[in-house]
């Protein structure tokens, strides 16, 4: 009991320390999201159709690019937490591997909460810019006005996806610590799998992205992330002390 309490208090102290040390991440996230917002202003999809009398040009707008950029950002954030610099920083604290992982995961969850809320709400900045800057007579009103339940669902789903991506980035970081060759092996394995058995990659993608029940989706993501984070912890336990 006291060991658990001790572990948690150490992990939480490390969490606070790491949160302060990595606070610069917020600037890169804001920068990335503003950049994605600018890209989003040109639309995410477009189509054109022509008949004898009618030409129709349609452009679709959404926060998809902003969310996608945030996904990439969290991947790199999680990778950064396992870098040698961060590991070295760990040794200045009273720590063990588990408390270090717990504090890292806590930090990742904090950034995930911030990233998911900001990326989902950034879509409204896009809409406001369009409202004032574009010819409104060309804009469809459908989907313009916020619906609270949709916003909440969007934030939670984005957060869950970010958790999965963060866990994968974290695992990659640990693998790189084990052997630097994993920098190449990890994407190569994915690329190879896509070439050898594209159906398997599609199935694993569909396992998350095609799930239409929010509850099942959440269970799948949480369990998968737990498995990947646990694997990261297990793998790092087999590493030398200062590696």
């Amino acid at each position, binding site marked *: 009991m006291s060991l658990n309490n001790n572990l948690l208090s150490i992990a939480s102290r490390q969490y606070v320390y790491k949160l*302060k040390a990595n*606070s*610069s991440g*917020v*600037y*890169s996230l804001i*920068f*990335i999201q503003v*950049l994605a917002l600018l890209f989003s202003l040109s639309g*995410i*999809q477009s*189509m054109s*159709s022509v008949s004898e*009398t*009618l*030409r*129709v*040009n*349609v*452009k*679709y*707008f*959404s926060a*998809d690019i902003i969310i996608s*950029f945030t996904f*990439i950002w969290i991947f*790199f954030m999680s990778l*950064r937490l396992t870098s040698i610099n961060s590991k070295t920083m760990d040794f200045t604290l009273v720590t063990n591997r588990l408390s270090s992982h717990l504090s890292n995961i806590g930090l990742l969850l904090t950034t995930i909460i*911030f990233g998911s*809320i900001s990326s*989902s*709400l950034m*879509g*409204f*900045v896009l*809409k*406001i810019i369009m*409202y004032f800057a574009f010819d*409104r*007579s*060309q*804009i*469809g*009103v*459908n*989907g*313009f*006005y916020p619906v609270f339940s*949709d*916003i909440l*669902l*969007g934030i939670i*789903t*984005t957060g869950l996806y970010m958790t999965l991506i963060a866990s994968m980035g974290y695992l990659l970081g640990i693998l790189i610590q084990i052997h630097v060759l994993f920098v190449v092996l990890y994407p190569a394995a994915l690329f190879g799998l896509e070439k050898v058995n594209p159906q398997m990659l*599609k199935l694993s993608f569909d396992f998350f*992205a*095609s799930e*239409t029940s*929010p509850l099942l*989706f959440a269970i799948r993501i949480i369990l998968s992330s737990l498995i990947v984070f646990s694997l990261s912890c297990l793998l790092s336990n087999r590493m030398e002390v200062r590696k």
Partner: protein
Amino acid sequence: MSIIGLPIAVAILVVVIMLARKLGTIVVTFMSWRKSAIIAGVYLLGLILSVVIAAVLPNHGFGLMERSHTGGGIQKGNVWTTSYSIRTQKDFESQPGLYLNSRQTFKIDQRAVKLGFAPNPGHFQIYVEQKEADDGKIDVSTYSTPFYVGETDYTKLLQPPKVIFQDGLLVIEPVQQTLTLKLFKSNFTQSQFEGKNAVNLQNGLSSSFGWSEVLLRVPKSMKIDKGQNYLQYLDKD
């Protein structure tokens, strides 16, 4: 995106993220974690405020308001079958997909007994109904079959064909029109639960064009020289 374009886009993004991180490192040397926390809070507050602003913005000015069907909803799948079931004038009124987009009445000389047609460049379907009486008027109504973009009905935006009546000759000309639509799409994190994230590039991008249908109601004794036009005479009920 092409097979070359995707890696290039990812590479550019990686460089941008690295630059952003570098920028973050430079900025953090000038700013404490407290300032970062304040900036994060202000940023989040600004975003929450944007939701409130978006909610209170007036909706006038939006050109694309969806049409509500009065005669019962029409499904996208019915678009191509809409006009085939028209046999009487009442069918026009009861047909849920058809949208009345113009109505004109032309007075004719009581002595005129013949109606001629100019060639119909738009290949409109023209329906003719002979009235019960000789009232000296030709009523021209133009309708449009549904025009969808994805799942949304924008028939209301279609311009009717131009109808001119001069010297006993009826001219129906198509109007060239360009529509530019800017539509909002749910984020993929929301649309997933509506079953719209399946890999199908055509999903939501299909459009069906609204075709014009013209209904003429002519006096009882009027004779019609249809020219090259295909006319369909409606039953009297």
